[in-house]
């Protein structure tokens, strides 16, 4: 299993009839109630849905952090639902880069040490771990901050460290569960720009978000409700998203129009429209 062997016609992720049932006391919560989904190499997919719709549950299973109650999850042709703890750990190490909403950095370690962490659990990059970690940090624009600890970094910089850590083992898929959920809008734009850059460089990315403007940067939007997929469209054809884009530009126009006496700035209008639309 490696990126090199990835065949563009073979799905990186293939899930069938995926169910996840949590037992809370006597109650059973169907967090995922039968999900089928294929994600191909070099796709950039946004997963959307209301809070509690099962996005995180799905991402955790995609990231092999959790196992489905029923159904199949095949990653690069390998059925992960049949793997034990040890092999799942290997898959997480080599195939998956996971980015959390709350960054999950080791607070006592420097950015560099944090990025080196996945290589501690791999036999592949023993003699180049430091060099690779430095390269990954440079790639996310933190070449000057390597020896800083997480508490010496801003939120956006922390998430960049987490991105570098997710990338350092060259995973076949980058999974991000609300990566900008803890960030202000300016930093959100920076992180999403970074994702787009990685995507342009060939990285397969799945990102969970509940912000339409973040989702708008993806190529494809998958929407969940009550543990089921209710829609799956390219961004440009997603009716909900396009509706949102229309409302946004109209709303902006209305706001500009309302600003009596002042001339609406066409440049800023375009910018908003562009941020709403596909990138």
């Amino acid at each position: 299993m490696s990126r090199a062997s990835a065949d563009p016609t073979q799905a990186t992720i293939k899930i069938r009839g995926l169910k996840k049932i949590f037992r809370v006391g006597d109650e059973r919560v169907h967090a995922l109630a039968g999900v089928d989904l294929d994600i191909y190499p070099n796709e950039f997919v946004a997963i959307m849905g209301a809070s509690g719709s099962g996005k995180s549950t799905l991402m955790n299973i995609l990231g092999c952090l959790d196992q489905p109650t029923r159904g199949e999850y095949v990653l690069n042709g390998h059925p992960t639902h049949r793997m034990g703890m040890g092999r799942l750990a290997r898959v997480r190490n080599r195939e998956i880069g996971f980015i959390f909403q709350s960054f999950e950095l080791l607070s006592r370690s420097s950015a560099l040490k944090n990025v080196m962490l996945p290589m501690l659990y791999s036999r592949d990059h023993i003699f180049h771990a430091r060099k690779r970690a430095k390269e990954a940090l440079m790639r996310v624009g933190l070449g000057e901050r390597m020896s800083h600890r997480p508490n010496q970094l801003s939120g956006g910089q922390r998430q960049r460290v987490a991105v570098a850590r997710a990338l350092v083992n060259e995973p076949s898929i980058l999974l991000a569960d609300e990566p900008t959920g803890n960030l202000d809008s300016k930093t959100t734009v920076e992180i999403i720009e970074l994702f787009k850059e990685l995507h342009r460089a060939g990285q397969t990315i799945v990102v969970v978000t509940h912000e339409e403007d973040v989702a708008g940067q993806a190529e494809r939007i998958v929407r969940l409700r009550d543990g089921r997929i209710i829609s799956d469209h390219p961004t440009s054809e997603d009716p909900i998203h396009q509706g949102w884009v229309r409302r946004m530009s109209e709303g902006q126009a209305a706001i500009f129009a309302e600003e009596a006496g002042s001339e609406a700035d066409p440049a800023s209008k375009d910018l908003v429209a562009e941020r709403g639309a596909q990138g």
Partner: protein
Amino acid sequence: MSVIIAPVAWVVRLVWQTVFLALGQVWANKVRAVLTALGIIIGVASVIAVISFLDAGRKWILSELDSAVGSRTMWVWGQVPDSQEGVMNWSDVRVTTHEAVLLLEKAPSIESLTPLCQRGWQVGYGRETVRGASVWGVWPSWHEVESRQVTLGRPLTDIDNAERRPVCLINEQAITELKLDIDPVGDYLVLNGRRFLIVGVLETKSGGGIFGGSQPRTELYIPFNTHKMMDPYSGTWFQANMINANAADDAKAEVRFILRKNRGLSGDDEDTFGMDVIQNAIQMFNNFAFVVMVGAGVVVGISLFVGGIGIMNIMLVSVSERTREIGLRKSLGAQPPVVLLQFLVEAVVLCLVGGLIGLGVGFALTRVVMLMQDFPIKDVPVPGYAILIGLGFSASVGIVFGILPAIKAAMLNPIDALRHE
């Protein structure tokens, strides 16, 4: 090449990083770590102190024994077996000079030997008289057996013995009590009504210590045959030197074989002689040391067990404090054995830190006791094996009591661990 090196390097790096991490963890919780390791500290300190004292004590007692009687000494005497009580007479079983010669010739573990007899006689010089002076009949080999030479004059000789000469050696106390000349060699004493020529003065033995309690008395040493001629009925026994202190078992077996053969004992016949070696005194000390060891072992065992429970408790706390960290490491691909190793190493490092402190405390304890007045042992070194045992114990406690928390951490589900607050 890298196919072989990489996995090795991986393991080395993992262990190194884990140890480093564990040391950091202990350092971050210094006070807690020391309090937790208190049981280990006490346990290891007791191990070190007890072993050091017993070791030094054994050496000291051996050297005391050696200067008092010699650690190679063996005694042989005639003895009527219990079952023959009333049937045999003591004179039937007493050891003879013939047997002394036999043992010297045929027992390879016996280096030197002298028959001995002793009784109290009145000794006079001029107007001075000492009643009940201790008079010994010995062979010239006695000088070697007792390693006691003359400071003046000459030692006893085989001719003195063969010709039953009336010659004697005296000790310093005799000079004082009989008011002899400071160089009395050539003077005559009256011993039990006979004139004896003083041929030499014996050196005073530096016995002292635990065995040299009694006041020195006037002692005379005369040829064995002379003694026997004056009193044929005094008790006789042999005192011998074995070739070394470890030859006790061989020496006993040889003496037994030779004497039984000489006395025509066969099959079920009981020995008509007895023997003892100084080793028995050492054995007695060893028995004492064993009792102390067992007692100390119980103390050490309890403190290590209590310490171990403390370690287990603190490791469980550590695991639940760092559940999120464990979840993160697992989400990045840490396999269960690696997580297990991390917590096991941490427990072992914690215990070893405690063990090292205990080592210091134990060492300090030996120094403090050594500095006490009246403490007879001058040097109490801490033997290397005590250090190994102490550190070995603490590492084992770390493994035994760290394994449960480590397994708990290793078996955590990554997502449950990450969600933990």
